[in-house]
């Protein structure tokens, strides 16, 4: 999709040699802290800003010719912007006429985002969540093959966030590729199959989320019926070559999920009764900070060198 794509604004390198590749038909998450370069990258892909260097293709077409692919792309960029004095329907009509799209799509997309009942009200009377949904409706107008949503859950309440998740899942189920940017890692973890992580303008990870999480540290937490048995459990772990430590009234073991059964077996054989045994998995947030902390360390080392 993009190769060595860079964008510099005077002294600031907003996007620094980004290489990204989003497989068709997946929900791809584009994550990073505020100011990491997500929106600029999206604007580059939509032909709204010109790259300083590098190339990119969207739906097989170069971003130097956005007119060749944008008819097949829907986008919600940053906060949704509409004409406040026009109704939601008229706002969509502006975009439909401009893009010479099928006018009948307006009712379809309004129904998809559950805004039909308020479609004829002026946008200035809408809540932020309704504007966000209207933004998604605008993105769906061309019946796109690719939908790019920049922070679509901003300003939504928990119910709205859940609706947005279901809209995005629905798009993926229809074979539409979705690229959704967010700094809310839990949201991304809940809805995305594929992940692109960006920090300081650089892509620091991309690939399936499942692969990322599997590669991260998993652990086992064990509780003994008698706290005094934790020391014995610690010794068992050491004998098995596993790192472990006592943390209050639990034992934390660095090991893969499969070793939990073995620990249970060994504890039983040693006469220890476990009152609890659970596997802890790294969250996307853990993975993100593990990767970006490592990246920061490397950057600091580069700067010192």
């Amino acid at each position, binding site marked *: 999709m993009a190769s060595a794509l860079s964008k510099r604004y005077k002294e600031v390198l907003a996007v620094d040699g980004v290489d990204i590749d989003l497989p068709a038909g997946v929900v791809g998450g584009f994550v990073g802290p505020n100011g990491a370069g997500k929106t600029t990258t999206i604007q580059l892909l*939509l032909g709204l*800003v010109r790259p300083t260097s590098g190339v990119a293709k969207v739906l097989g077409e170069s971003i130097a010719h956005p007119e060749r692919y944008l008819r097949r792309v829907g986008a919600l960029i*940053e906060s949704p912007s509409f004409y406040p004095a026009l109704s939601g329907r008229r706002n969509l009509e502006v975009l439909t006429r401009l893009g010479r799209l099928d006018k009948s799509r307006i009712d379809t997309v309004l129904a998809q985002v559950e805004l039909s009942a308020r479609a004829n009200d002026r946008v200035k009377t809408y809540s932020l969540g309704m504007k966000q949904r209207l933004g998604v409706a605008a993105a769906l*107008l061309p019946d796109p093959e690719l939908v790019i949503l920049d922070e679509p859950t901003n300003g939504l309440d928990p119910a709205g966030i859940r609706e947005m998740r279901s809209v995005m899942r629905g798009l993926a189920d229809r074979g539409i590729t979705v690229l959704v940017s967010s700094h809310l890692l839990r949201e991304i973890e809940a809805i995305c199959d594929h992940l692109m992580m960006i920090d300081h303008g650089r892509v620091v990870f991309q690939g399936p989320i499942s692969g990322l999480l599997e590669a991260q540290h998993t652990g086992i937490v064990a509780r003994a019926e008698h706290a005094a048995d934790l020391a014995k459990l610690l010794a068992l772990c050491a004998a098995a070559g596993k790192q472990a430590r006592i943390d209050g009234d639990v034992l934390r073991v660095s090991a893969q999920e499969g070793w939990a059964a073995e620990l249970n077996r060994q504890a039983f054989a040693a006469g220890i009764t476990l009152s609890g045994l659970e596997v802890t998995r790294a969250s996307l947030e853990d993975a993100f900070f593990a990767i970006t902390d490592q990246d920061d360390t490397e950057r600091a080392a580069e700067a010192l060198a």
Partner: protein
Amino acid sequence: MWGAFSSEWIKLQRRSLLLWGFGAGLLFPVLATIFTIERATRTPQLFSGHGIHITYAVLEQPNGLVHGVVDVSSLIGIVSLCLFAAAFATEYSQGTLRNLLVREPRRIQFLIGKFLALVLFILIVVIVAVGVSVALAFILAPGKGISTSAWSSSTGITDMFQAVFHAFLAAVIYGLFGAALGVLLRSPGLSIGIAIAWVIPIEAIIVGAIWSSGSNWLPGRLLAALAHGGNGDSTYYHALLMLAIYAGATAVAILALFRRRDA
């Protein structure tokens, strides 16, 4: 281009814009017509301020019908300038430009289509403004004893159409300068403020205090001459030629800027 034209047309139908555009566009010609006819005198008399009252004899000429309109055609131009500047700058300040450019990435077509929709809007404003003023003149003049027979002569009708054409042409060029400022500055308030400051006080200061022959070169003065069909500062054709050069250069510069600049 048709897409940009027709989508802009939806925005131009906003109630507030219709009220503002037609209100401002009508206000000056209507007031000027009422004022011109009501204050006309049979013989030349000194005005209490500056100048003299217009006489019945002048108003009874074929071009007397649009006398008031012609006097304020520059003000219609300034209304046009504000409208175009706001229409372009608001797309930036409101953040709607990005949505629009995703749907129409061919920026030149987008810009031209939007501009043409505004041109049609301002043409309607000019026609309505002149139409209302003409109707008002026909209603008020007999009450003052002013003969209107020459107004409906072929010369009178030609003069009326010429007045519409000159006011429209000046309004379009004012609009082009407004659009250019809107694209350049991306702020409606700043664009309108700078444009009005330039056309009204700054050019007057330049011509009055620094450069007396500036009337032949400064765009605001040339636009006033064009709107009047030529005046004491410039002939109609000189104003038309100079403004064609300025407008052409402005259009090329703005199209190039808009095509290349990040949205």
